[in-house]
């Protein structure tokens, strides 16, 4: 089981590298899509526990702003330090918000997350002198050990994806990971097994915030600029859509979902630049109607049809 899966991931990486080499722009969009995939993976983690966050943009944006502030205040341009700053600021923020929010469920959890992210959106927009307001803040062209990384950011993103996906795969096979699905179906039993449900959620909230921050920092460095719109609910919706489209049931799902979304948006910009919203809506609708489990459910369709025929 382990061998072939690892091999396929290697093939996927090779495909991504090939696409990136073929077109320099593709490496940029792959970087952004995969970075958003990391954040969507964080959203998917909570979806496993039956919790839908409508405010995960908070951590995605915190990652971007964390990196931007490190550059602005300390003049740091080193890629790894910037990433670290983004990851840490989102994780710390996740620890604080998580401590409060993991007590809530269902619509309350969704809305309180939304509220938290929108509070930050307003703050960042308002505190013009501190944050650049709606104009946002620039990020420097990053360096890596003093060198210009060129395609380095793309490869670093790819490495982050592999480390996080691999780590999360193992994590999901652990008792803590399996406990997530258990939260979705029966919190009482989990408590009666001696496990603190809110404690487990708190840990996962922090992990998902960290993933959001890492993705946000990578995307922000690639884009070179952060704006308050990162905090806006539309960003959260996009992350949620990516996770749902890809299917929260697998680690690869959110990446698949985000790649699909970016792909559709790009193709729409290419062929119908004024109808990109409609194209994305139709694509989401199609997946929701025909593959309700998300893209990762496509592989099950033939079996389902077979069963339906029998």
């Amino acid at each position, binding site marked *: 089981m382990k061998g072939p899966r690892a091999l396929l991931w290697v093939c996927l990486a090779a495909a991504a590298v090939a696409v990136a080499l073929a077109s320099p722009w593709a490496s940029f969009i792959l970087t952004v899509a995969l970075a958003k995939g990391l954040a969507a993976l964080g959203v998917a983690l909570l979806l496993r526990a039956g919790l839908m966050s409508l405010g995960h943009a908070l951590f995605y944006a915190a990652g971007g702003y964390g990196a931007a502030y490190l550059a602005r205040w300390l003049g740091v341009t080193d890629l790894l330090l910037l990433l670290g700053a983004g990851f840490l600021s989102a994780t710390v923020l996740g620890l604080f918000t998580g401590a409060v929010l993991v007590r809530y469920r269902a619509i309350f959890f969704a809305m309180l997350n939304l509220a938290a992210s929108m509070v930050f959106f307003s703050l960042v927009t308002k505190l013009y002198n501190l944050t650049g307001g709606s104009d946002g803040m620039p990020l420097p062209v990053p360096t890596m050990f003093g060198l210009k990384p060129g395609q380095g950011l793309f490869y670093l993103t790819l490495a982050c994806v592999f480390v996080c996906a691999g780590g999360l795969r193992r994590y999901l096979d652990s*008792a803590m990971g*399996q*406990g997530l*699905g*258990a939260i979705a*179906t029966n919190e*009482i039993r989990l*408590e009666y*097994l001696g496990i603190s449900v809110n404690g487990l959620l708190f840990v996962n909230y922090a992990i998902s915030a960290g993933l959001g921050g890492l993705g946000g920092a990578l995307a922000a460095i690639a884009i070179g600029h952060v704006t308050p719109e990162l905090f806006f609910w539309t960003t959260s919706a996009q992350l949620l859509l990516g996770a749902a489209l890809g299917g929260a049931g697998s680690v690869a799902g959110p990446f698949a979902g985000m790649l699909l979304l970016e792909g559709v948006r790009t193709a729409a910009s290419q062929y119908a630049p004024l109808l990109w919203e409609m194209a994305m809506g139709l694509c989401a609708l199609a997946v929701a109607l025909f593959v309700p489990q998300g893209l990762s459910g496509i592989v099950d369709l033939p079996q389902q049809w077979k069963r339906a025929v029998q």
Partner: protein
Amino acid sequence: MKPILKAEDLQVAFGGVIAADRVNLTVLADEVLAIVGSNGSGKTTFVNVCTGYIKPRRGEVYFGNTALSRLHPRAITRLGIARAFQIPQLFAEHTVLENLLLAAAARRGFWRPFSAISRPCYLEEAREALGLLGLEGCASQRAAQLSEGTRKLVDIAMALALRPRLLFMDEPTSGVSSDEAIVIMEAVMGALARAGITTVFVEHDMEMVRRYAHRVAVWESGRVVAQGQPHGILHDSQIRESIAGMA
């Protein structure tokens, strides 16, 4: 025999309904105690108080020297008190084996992010708990797909997998056909005896009580109205009267 659990002067009320009215009860180490009483007499409430689900308005439950009434269910579980539910509480989307793996992991060290839940020592324990109740056959079935009787057994198996010192079972055979009930009880009680687990079980079927209980406590309107050896209690006509409604 030594007392293992002591309920003192418990009081619980839901609005106007008194569900526990100055309940005093001692559970002795290694005994099997049956709780009987008509519907709504407060049996489940007692179990809920002892396992931390309900905080009593007054009174206290001691497990050894530890007062339980202010503790969370999870803290009580960690002290060595497990519980099976009147309505089985399973992880519906997980397989039976995964349900038990979670229980085994919960006992042995849950907070290890990178150690697989299916590691051999957990598997062994999970399989053992399944084996005790003859559940090996449905290990790979999803919990949601099981019959009610099997769900009850899995529910009990999860409590067993925690290897508790004291186990509460709330009507282990309700909703199960009487043929099935005998099989279940035979399996469960055998396993408990072998494992040496002190047991408190709520039961409607007097036949089961006679067979398996060392002692009986009779509930009525939130009070313990009688307790003693099964044959003595079950022959008291007044008591039979009071629990007749439940059949």
